């Protein structure tokens, strides 16, 4: 009988500011994201979300040296740790936690196909460009972005799932930080027992949710 391995899945929300920073790390140009500066109350809720996740991960008692981290929007590029460091310096609580785990011995693995991420970047940049036209134009484009983005997200998820299966080593536990729009569990539940870590997801505070 084959043992089915455990996988830790952390569904997360990225703020507009964080999405902007992640995109910046991909192509080096910063899109003009409306509301680019987090509101204090949004920042407070997001910090609480990550503090709660931090505590719950500590309570899993999984030792960091056996942990392999797969982070959404982290391209397979050989610069994964450097990207995490840049984003952590720009106050991404997500990447600060990733780096803390890496410092304790966890391995950060590139998770996403860079070419698919560039497509995501382009789609989101187009959407954001509409924001300078009018709120209605942005809202209309947001719906279109979500429809188009669903197919791209499926392709990204297939890549991530294959990446997890091909890079995970014996004795390791995969730890996934994935935006809530990913549907990775559908591709992984036949190979892993999925354990979720959820503390709180402040949807309204975060506002529009992108695929980054």
């Amino acid at each position: 009988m084959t043992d089915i391995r455990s996988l830790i899945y952390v569904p997360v929300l990225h703020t507009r500011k964080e999405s902007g920073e992640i995109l910046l790390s991909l192509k080096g140009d910063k899109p003009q994201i409306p509301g680019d500066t987090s509101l204090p109350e949004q920042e407070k809720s997001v910090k609480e979300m990550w503090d709660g996740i931090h505590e719950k991960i500590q309570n899993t008692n999984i030792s960091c040296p056996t942990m392999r981290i797969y982070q959404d929007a982290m391209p397979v590029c050989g610069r994964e740790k450097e990207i995490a460091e840049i984003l952590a310096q720009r106050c991404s609580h997500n990447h600060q936690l990733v780096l803390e785990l890496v410092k304790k011995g966890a391995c950060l693995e590139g998770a996403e196909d860079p070419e698919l991420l560039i497509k995501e970047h382009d789609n989101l940049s187009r959407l954001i460009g509409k924001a300078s036209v009018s709120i209605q134009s942005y809202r209309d484009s947001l719906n279109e972005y979500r429809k188009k983005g669903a197919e791209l997200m499926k392709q990204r998820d297939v890549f991530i799932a294959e990446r997890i299966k091909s890079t995970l080593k014996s004795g390791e536990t995969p730890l996934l930080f994935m935006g809530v729009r990913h549907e990775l569990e559908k591709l992984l539940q036949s190979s892993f027992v999925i354990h979720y870590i959820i503390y709180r997801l402040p949807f309204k505070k975060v506002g529009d949710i992108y695929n980054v």
Partner: protein
Amino acid sequence: MALNKTKILIIDDEADLRFLFERILTPEGYTVLTAGNGYDGIKINRKSDPDIILLDLKMPGINGIETLRRIRKKDSGVIVIIITGYGDAETIREAEELNVYEYMSKPFNNETVINTIKEAAASKGKDD
């Protein structure tokens, strides 16, 4: 006791939790209504028009997502906060599509719940 006009409906099959929410929210000045299952929750929502619903996901009969789906057919404006011990990625996506205010997991911190309710009420302009 603080005075405010906010009406909160708790939909949870665990009587202990309904009692706990009543105990922590009533002294804050909220009017608290309770339902032990989704069917009763939908009926009370129609009849009493609460401002905020605290909704459990795993309940006998219809689950929380189905309860919310039925509530949303007639009431797109009520603020819904999900509090669950059994979250997964799919229910999170469904909850987001059904326009929930926040998704929280059990066990919860009383202060966090109260603060979230206060913020939600303020967003509707009904805080004290």
